[in-house]
């Protein structure tokens, strides 16, 4: 694969153009990584706003009409709704794990069965998140199974 970098003309918007014969798994992964890095999410904590790279978010959780995002060690609140996050980050590493959780598949260390069709994802930061049975097919699709 060749990577060509061209200087844009003054006033021209920065662009990334992918030229390929077909969009295979590798291409999809590259596009996903680019999309994840493009838009940062504003997270608030103790009155302070932090711009967070979605690639560093372990999972989003909706509780009592609020949405929280969990990074490696910290938790922030975001004004985005879960359905907005699901839509904006479709075809990225984020997937709906249950009605109230959107999980970053790259942060999953391992998955184990948790009885009655549910699965429990152990994340790299030691937290455990339940993946509902109805969303397991989506995870399988994300992993190419």
């Amino acid at each position, binding site marked *: 694969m060749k990577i060509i970098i061209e200087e844009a003309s003054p006033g021209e918007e920065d662009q990334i153009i992918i030229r390929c014969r077909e969009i295979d798994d590798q291409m999809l992964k590259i596009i996903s990584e680019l999309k994840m890095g493009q838009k940062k999410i504003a997270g608030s904590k103790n009155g302070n706003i932090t711009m967070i790279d979605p690639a560093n978010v372990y999972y989003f959780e909706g509780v009592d009409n609020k949405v929280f995002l969990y990074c490696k060690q910290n938790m922030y609140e975001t004004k985005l709704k879960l359905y907005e996050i699901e839509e904006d980050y479709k075809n990225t590493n984020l997937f709906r794990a249950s009605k109230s959780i959107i999980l970053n598949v790259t942060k999953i260390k*391992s998955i184990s069965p948790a*009885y009655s069709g549910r699965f429990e994802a152990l994340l790299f930061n030691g937290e455990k998140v339940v993946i509902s049975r109805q969303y397991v097919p989506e995870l399988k699709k994300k992993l*190419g199974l």
Partner: protein
Amino acid sequence: MDTIKKMINTFAYIMTGSSLSCALFLTIFAPKLEVSITLLWQIAAMSFVCALGNLIFSYKKVPSKKQMIIRTFCHYIYINAIVYSNAFLCKWLAPGLMPEILVMLLLVAVVYVIIMIVNFRNEEKIANSLNRQLRKQYPKQEDDEL
């Protein structure tokens, strides 16, 4: 759709388990009994009603471990209630025949546990294949100390 598939699976497991249990039960307590086709339909109907018990595990919000244990207990009571109601209605058992009632209790418990184990092993296989793909596609990445 997923719930219906799971129910069909459960129906098949219960039908198999019930048929084998029935064969064992009759071998112990009525080896010379001639059975009619009606018995097979009774077992099928009972298996269908037992499979409906899967709805106990449906949820809108993901239940906690404690809630799942309570649901499993309720499900087990439901299965026993169906089996015994069927047993007395279809005259498989007469009230007061303690050895037969106890053996049936044991058979229901054994079939229940076997189905739980089979389901768990299937889920373990799925988890293992997911883990293999995870290790292949997403090795641990460094990230911000956020």
